[in-house]
């Protein structure tokens, strides 16, 4: 309750700072690298990281840890290939990037579509998470919990804009990390701080293979790692850095914050199995563990932390989707000369619409594990955006048609494989080992065949890789 109070307080305080659309979307680029590292980590530590991993490890043991490794590993790829060039390029969104790099408005449409799709897939598990958490904490009916959270979150975004979200992200990053730390330490203390003894109680869960066979494990890790580097709502946050160098430092900071967090999550999962046996839930393992080792107080903190995590993530996603709808779509196709005031109004309206939609989906997808659902979003991002970004930044020979092929093939192949898997037509749960190489290949082949490289490619390469002295 206190966190919700603080959150609302920050939102109201920040409202004064919304004076232009730019500030609404990228906070005037004034946030420091350290703050951004915490904020990005906070954004990233959504329901899946906080609740889902512990839940999966509780449920399936070792195989659940893939999610931690995968979620974390993506940041390394992001750092090595995309962080600095993205910031130096300076566009607001992925759609902006493809449109400006290749001088193509049709790429903008396709990328906007991809962004919306990924954001929706990512939002669903957050709403499911919020329903589960609030019903455990407050005893509310699941549906009520989803509706109330949705309304609160959407209102928050409409009032506060990205700066409020940034500060909220920083606060809740610290809260989540600390909550996890305290829970894990308390759990370990019951075993005399011997993690080995705790694992001895649950040995059968420490073997790989309870959930995923070899092919699916491999595909999952690949999808999670590459997907991180294609997530629109994470990439957008890079534009709040002052320079390419700062963007790199932000990523490094996030790696340390997240890494330590993901080392702890599986411990919580195993501890839940040790303390509660089968009496937990795949999304509620962590709060239930907190209750056992720290009483209602700790459970309250964990649930509040989870809710704040979800708030931050959904807010980030709403902003990204709003950006896609208002900035990319509306501005470019409906009303090019919209005044800044009008743009802001459209942005807020879009935020409202998306908020309502997310509530709806949260109710429909009750019962699914949040990390699993998030993994699907990741595989779409890995297939749609990562290949295009990677090759767009590093290969001169890429053409507009190649980009189009990459976006479309990545999007279509990943979605169709997910759909056919959910319908039971094949066993591959994560399409990435097929859709990602397919996207890369299509970019390469189509670009080579087409040959029409953008005329300003030299300037582009200079700008993103060499740039001005910072």
């Amino acid at each position, binding site marked *: 309750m206190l966190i919700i109070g603080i959150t609302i307080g920050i939102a109201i305080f920040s409202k004064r700072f919304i004076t232009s659309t730019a500030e609404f979307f990228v906070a005037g680029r004034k946030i420091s690298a350290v703050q951004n590292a915490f904020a990005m980590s906070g954004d990233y530590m959504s329901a899946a990281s906080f609740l889902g991993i512990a839940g999966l490890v509780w449920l399936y043991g070792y195989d659940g840890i893939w999610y931690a490794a995968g979620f974390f590993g993506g940041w390394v790829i992001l750092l090595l290939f995309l962080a600095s060039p993205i910031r130096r390029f300076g566009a607001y969104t992925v759609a902006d990037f493809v449109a400006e790099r290749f001088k193509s408005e049709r790429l903008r449409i396709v990328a906007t579509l991809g962004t919306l799709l990924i954001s929706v897939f990512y939002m669903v598990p957050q709403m499911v998470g919020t329903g589960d958490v609030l019903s455990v904490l407050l005893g509310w009916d699941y549906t009520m919990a989803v509706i109330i959270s949705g309304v609160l979150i959407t209102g928050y975004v409409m009032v506060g804009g990205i700066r409020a979200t940034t500060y909220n992200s920083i606060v809740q990053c610290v809260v989540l990390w600390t909550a996890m730390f305290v829970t894990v330490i308390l759990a370990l203390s019951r075993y005399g701080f011997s993690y080995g003894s705790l*694992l001895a109680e649950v040995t059968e869960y420490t073997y790989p293979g309870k959930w995923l066979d070899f092919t699916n494990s491999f595909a999952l890790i690949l999808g999670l790692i590459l997907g991180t580097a294609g997530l629109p709502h994470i990439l957008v946050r890079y534009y709040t850095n002052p320079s390419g160098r700062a963007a790199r430092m932000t990523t490094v900071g996030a790696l340390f914050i997240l890494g330590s967090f993901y080392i702890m999550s599986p411990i919580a999962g195993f501890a839940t199995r040790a303390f509660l046996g089968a009496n937990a839930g795949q999304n509620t393992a962590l709060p239930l563990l907190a209750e056992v080792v720290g009483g209602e107080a700790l459970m309250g903190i964990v649930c509040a932390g989870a809710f704040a995590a979800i708030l931050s993530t959904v807010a980030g996603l709403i902003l990204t989707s709003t950006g896609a709808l208002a900035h990319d779509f509306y501005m470019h196709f409906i009303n090019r000369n919209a005044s800044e005031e009008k743009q802001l109004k459209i942005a807020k309206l879009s935020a409202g619409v998306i908020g309502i939609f997310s509530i709806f989906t949260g109710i429909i997808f009750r019962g699914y594990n949040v990390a699993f659902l998030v993994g699907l979003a990741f595989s779409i991002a890995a297939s749609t955006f990562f290949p295009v970004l990677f090759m767009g930044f590093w290969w001169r020979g890429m053409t507009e048609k190649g980009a189009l092929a990459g976006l479309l093939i990545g999007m279509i192949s990943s979605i169709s494989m997910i759909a056919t898997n959910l319908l039971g037509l094949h066993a591959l749960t994560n399409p990435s080992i097929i859709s990602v190489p397919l996207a890369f290949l299509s970019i390469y082949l189509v670009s080579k065949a087409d040959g029409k490289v953008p005329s300003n490619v030299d300037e582009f390469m200079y700008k993103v890789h060499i740039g001005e002295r910072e």
Partner: protein
Amino acid sequence: MGNKEMDKIIKNKFRLSISLGVIFLTTVLSLPILNEYAKNFMQISFGNFSIAYIYVAIFIYLISWGLTLIYVKKTNEMEERN
């Protein structure tokens, strides 16, 4: 700055990123492969921690942090030189 010079710089940056990236991906993707094809080795235990566990829960992070720091140091050096 001439085109050739620019190309050289970009190529060096790419080479750094690719080599570190390949090391990283190989490290991570070897894990399911080892788990499948070297089961006995991966289940060798130290205390109650199997190699499989140590690999996925700790080793990957240490490697990542190391690669990360190398990357930042080298890239900053490269950019100082320009």
